[in-house]
């Protein structure tokens, strides 16, 4: 049986289709579901094996990035909590990470309280470029398993600066190696250069860079002429999720 992936979208979720394509390529059965369909009860989150929050500008990123989407999810928080606590894989990419932070699902805490945020980049505006990332081999994150020490992925965000309210929270992240990905050269001012964090179980993961944009070797700017090798670093994130439930 192919694992069923719910790819959650809403107004101006822009990276839903490439995320859909990526999951399908690694052998899953993805489905695009609008948050309105969950709210209306036509679809149930718990009917799926894997959940993905793609990148984009959900609801224009008005108020702050991912905030409106997070508010819409609040009515269904019991289902989402069950999904995550039940250990089913959840990945939030870029705007999806922002949503997971604004809902309080990441960093994980008992009350689902928002304890961190992704704030406006230090440069003050949107940036799209490739970034070198360090993979934390000690992290429990299931999505980054088997990756080399360093990988390249593109970033594309205006609000990617990961900050937490108090130092204790940061120690809780680093102490348990929840920071699965860090930037080699900090592009946005994130604390400790954090690019992605997971819950302690390793199953709920949010990251600012876009693995679906370095899925194949020919998506890399340093592509050798006539690149023939297929899968690149980003492929592993999706494959890992499918392998985990399979």
């Amino acid at each position, binding site marked *: 049986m192919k694992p069923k992936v719910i790819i959650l979208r809403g*107004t*101006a979720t*822009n*990276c839903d*289709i*490439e995320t*859909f*394509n*990526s999951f*399908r*390529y690694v052998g899953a059965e993805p489905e695009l579901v*609008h948050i*309105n*369909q969950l709210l209306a009860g036509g679809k149930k989150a718990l009917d799926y094996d894997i959940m993905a929050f793609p*990148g*984009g*500008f959900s*609801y*224009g*990123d008005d108020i702050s990035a991912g905030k409106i989407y997070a508010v819409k999810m609040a009515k269904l928080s019991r289902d989402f909590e069950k999904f995550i606590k039940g250990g089913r894989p959840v990945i939030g990419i870029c705007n999806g990470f922002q949503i997971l932070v604004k809902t309080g699902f990441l960093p994980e805490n008992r009350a689902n309280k928002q304890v961190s945020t992704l704030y406006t980049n230090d440069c003050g*505006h*949107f*940036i*799209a*470029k*490739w970034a070198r990332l360090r993979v934390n081999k000690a992290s429990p994150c299931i999505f980054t398993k088997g990756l080399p020490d360093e990988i390249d992925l*593109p970033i*594309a965000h*205006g609000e990617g600066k990961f900050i937490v309210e108090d130092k204790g929270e940061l120690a809780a992240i680093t102490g348990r190696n929840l920071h699965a990905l860090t930037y080699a050269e900090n592009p946005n001012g994130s604390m400790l250069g954090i690019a992605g964090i997971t819950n302690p179980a390793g199953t709920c993961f949010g990251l600012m860079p*876009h693995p*679906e*944009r370095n*899925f*194949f*070797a*020919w*998506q890399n*700017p*340093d*592509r*050798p*002429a*006539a*690149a*023939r090798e297929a899968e690149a670093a980003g492929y592993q994130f999706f494959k890992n999720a499918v392998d985990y439930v399979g």
Partner: protein
Amino acid sequence: MAFRDGAKTKKYRNLFKETIVKATRTLNRKWCLSVFTDNAGIVEFGKGGKWGLAFKAETHNHPCAVEPYGGAETGVGGVIRDILGVGLGAKPVLNTDTFCFGRLDGKKRLPKNALSPERVMRGVVEGVRDYGNRIGIPTAAGGIYFDDGYLLNPLVYVGCAGLIPVDKIDKKVIPGDLIVSIGGRTGRDGIHGATFSSANIDEETSASAVQIGHAVNEKKALDVLMRARDLGLYNAVTDCGAGGFSSAIGELGSETGARVRLEKALLKDTRIEPWEIWVSESQERMILSVPKGKLKKLAAILDAENCEYCVLGEFPGDGRLLVTHGEERVVDLPMAFLHGGVPNFEKAASRRRVKISAPAPARPTAGYGRALKSLLAHPNVCSRHSVITQYDHEVQGGTVGKPLQGRYGDGPGDAAVIWPQAATLDLHDFSGFAVSHGFNPAIGRIDPYQMALQSIDEAVRNLLAAGADVSRTAILDNFCAASPRDPEVMGDLVLAAEGCHDAAMAYGAPFISGKDSFYNQSKDADGREYPIPLSLLISATAPVEDVRRALTINFKEAGNPVYLAGATAPGMGGSVYNELRDTGNNAVAPLDMKAAVKLYAGLARAIKAGCVAAAHDVSQGGLAVTLSEMAFSGGFGADIDLAPARRGLTGTELLFGESPARLVLEVAKGREAEFLRLVKGLPVAEIGYVKEEPLLCVSAGPERFFTEDIFALKDCWKRELI
């Protein structure tokens, strides 16, 4: 129109039809699916005849001069709607933008109320960024050109390309269909936007003629359209652009007539007059022709996507346009009058005389290396990274040929190569397409005919350098000119249009869509008319059979031989070098189109065989700039000996001249014999080797021009424009 050229006079009834459209008709390429009729041109895409590629470019100059941020946003939004409104709707997969601004370091005094070029540039870049990023379409091709001719009238060209299933290209309003408006609401923004765009800009100009953009509303409309299209829920669609409802409904109902009840329109502002509702250019509105029985299904999708809509009336089939607001009759006219009753104006055109002199250009006094560094730092040559990185140029995951490429992800790509996986949903089909541009008003000041030829040549060459199949190039023309009342402005236009015709014929590259913009002139600080130079943006696209094999510009491996393709010709006219140090030589090296077409066919064979590791065109700044960019983008040096290309040229012409139809190629080691066999008889010469040591050493036989550290060259080039 009568064109006077010395003693001769040539008459045109319709200049564009007799030049640009004529070339397309004569070429009659079977892969052209729709040209000059719909909101965008459409060509075949990929294998199996399943898809069409729609491509359109237009300008939004006047709004950007007055309100750069809003003008740029609504420019982007407008051209995206053209793609959404072509056929039954195409899925946008690429945005392009090309800007012309006054020099940031210009000395000319600005008139009262004019915005500084820096302020215009910042506003325009932010507008393109905020609209394109929010709507999720990669902005991955274009350019920025600085020239004081654009100080008072900046140009903002916006383009969009999208994919459409071939069975969704035809649209037809059926009598009885409902007129449904979806997306944005109607307000008082953008009243008279269309007429404003052909007026002089002065202190009387009001910013209320500029529309207000809202990318998220357009994304909702996009998401609804793609779903409703595939379910066949409407018979026709078009966008509300200039003229708003009046032109969109007028266009769709040209045969059936239309019955419109303006009181049904969803409004932003209740104080709006009925005529204002009819002509308002409020953004993000699409008009659909919906069979009555399908409205319910369509409404369900609209509601699910939180997209507002209203039913404005119906297409009755009686050929009359009847527009009412409650009891009030606003318009009651036969459609035939509206579509056929345009008066024709007679215009005069005459050839402008330019004195050409061609002395041998002198050696740069500070040496060739210093001159190269100044060229690399020139605003029309230097890096655009600070602008490009503000655009999400990789959303949709299909930007295979990137605007920034190479070992450090910052080399200047020649063309965008797009793999439209977000439209085809097929990761096992590697069909893609490339998009590039050609633009050179500096040549146009001297010779508008050569400008047209060489802009088309540059666009084709850029496609070739990215590994596209240039035998199937399709092109768009976008002219911007000053006042059509000036015979010399019209004379330039005639010559450029003739150039477009001749180049399209020679390259076998049909025009599939085009647009022009006039009255790009304003009064300067002294009250004198200050026109822009004639500006022709050529946008070109060609298929890339396998995106995995698309080429990049950066040197790949030490020891690989470097070749120069194409003959270097004398003449410094239109060159960036002349702007830095006027050589007194303003001769434009003419383009030999026959030779170019033959050369490109040979190079295409070599690229297809896999002999070529990197390719880059020779354009602004000349050969030395091309070599520098290939070297520092790859992190390699090179030993270059230009003796085989010299042919009696001075060092300045050889290194910094911009004669057309030339590329530099890096050939893979061990493939040279095969490469040479494939380009036999063509002007292709080996000029050196890539080397590990990061030094670019260029000489011609015994004469050493310069040896420069590639990272020092890069430091000059990588300026922060913004």
